[in-house]
């Protein structure tokens, strides 16, 4: 089956228009880094209070 290209296909390579981020990949990396930071902070929280 051939999927017809739609209007949003080009938008895939468009910048996210979020200050500080030129590409979507950069934004995803930031979110992933935030997740890692949250897990590290929760680990520290557990170590401090448990």
């Amino acid at each position, binding site marked *: *089956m051939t999927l017809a290209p739609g209007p949003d296909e080009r938008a895939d390579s468009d910048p996210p228009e*979020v200050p500080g981020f030129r590409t979507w990949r950069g934004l995803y990396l930031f*979110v992933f880094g935030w*997740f890692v930071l*949250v897990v590290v902070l929760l680990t520290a929280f*557990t170590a401090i209070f448990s």
Partner: protein
Amino acid sequence: MNVADWIVLLGTLVGIAAYGAWRTRHIRSLNTYLRGSASTGWGTIGLSVMATQASAITFLSIPGQGFESGIGFVQNYFGLPLALIIVCVVFLPMYRRLNVYTAYEFLGQRFDDKTRLLGAGLFLLQRGLAAGVTIYAPAIIISTVLGWRLDLVIVCTGLLVIIYTVTGGSEAVALTHKWQMTMISAGMVTALVVLLHRLPDGLGFTGAAHVAGALGKLQAVDFSLDPSRRYTVWTGVFGGLFLSLSYFGTDQSQVQRYIGGASLREGRLGLMFNAVLKIPMQFVILLIGALLFVFYQFAPHPVFFNQAEWRRHAADGRFAALEARHADALAQSQSAIRAWLAARASDDATREASARAAMVAANDRTDAIRADARAALASADPRAKTKDSDYVFITFILSELPHGTIGLLVAVMFAAALSSKAAELAALGTTTTIDLWRHFRPLAAADEGRNVRVARRFTAMWGVVAVAFALFAGFAENLIEAINILGSIFYGVLLGLFLVAFFLRRVGGSAVFFAAVAAEALVIVMYFSLNIGYLWYNIIGCAACVAFSLVLQAVLPPRVRADEVRAR
């Protein structure tokens, strides 16, 4: 609740519902009715995705879970940010490119009609069963605590959500979600602030956190590899990833929240908004539960928080004895905690260790009495509800918050119920219209007005089904786990269907269809015969569906494969 509480409760709930219905009363376009306004921005999409997932159970059960078992449940959400990134990269662009109304339409375009119907059927079965729970869960707890009639609460909640969802469809759902989520956030922050102010003088947040931690309530992460443990980092990251990927990528109640909107960018940013905020939000809700635990170490409280259930059996002499033992144990526990706090401040490690051991022992005695209370209830009436953790937060709200804010917090519970219910009804109505009704009546697709009318009727029908289900069905006591378990049984296979569709381009419709049926049977058999954390069933169902698809594609008769190639 006094007049001020009632004004806040009814004003906010009815006001938001009326606003949603009034703003969307003129919708005639099928696209707007099913996908929402084409100008919706990422903020509204993000709040709508959040409101859909955050049901009333989130705000009733999760603080109770923090109170009873600590904050380890937060690990359940560790897979969510990763799943949302995958949805942004793979699922969302494809849905928008194909311009589908439902996720299952995509299965039909990629495979065949029977696979589309299987996907839609799995969704309708799973979500249809859960639909009653999302109304019943808050209704049973709030009606029990406030002494309201359960059937009236269910019918009124159901009617309110049916009215605005049927009127404005997806557009009304998104509009009301924005305001409901704002109100929910304000209510939870208010509850947290009041809770911190109600802690004993000199204890503060840090002292309370140390007490909670010493008594085992603040273990947020557990790196254990024991597969029988329900919540660990590994079940959260891997099982949670699959559960979240299934939920956000293939569950129409979520897909419908983000496939509309002004552009692909808005949908993606709305999902990233959730990826960033979800774990901190769940952490705060669980932390409220852990702080409630500390609060109730210093404040008088019942041995069993579901007082309505307790009083039904209170004539038995054993119950008065249990209450007296609990009050005595609580006084000892308070003394032990104060002694430990003093020992900590003294910097004497030996004294601190001894005081900590005494505090833990005192807490164990209190826990044992609470366990005795549950056992006494069960022996007095085998059908008695013996789990009371869902009643902890609402008890605090009603007994400790000032009037006005009580109404606000009760409104929070109902707003959360309405928000998740509305998204479910819209999704069930949309899937029934697009994947069933239009499939069997393809000529009707051209008549847009008729499609909107039919979608409204199906949405109303599912609302009535959910209300009837809530009125007449009995549900598991731990409601949030019941929903998660139900989801884990079905979601893995559903996700498997989509992963095959996205990544295994050579696999055809017949192979994936029979693979999904076999994988679902396998998961159900395993659920009833094994004792493993239920999040693992997401991985097992998905992996089985993918593996069986590959095997069946290889062994299917050439004629079937040739038909599929022609069909494609």
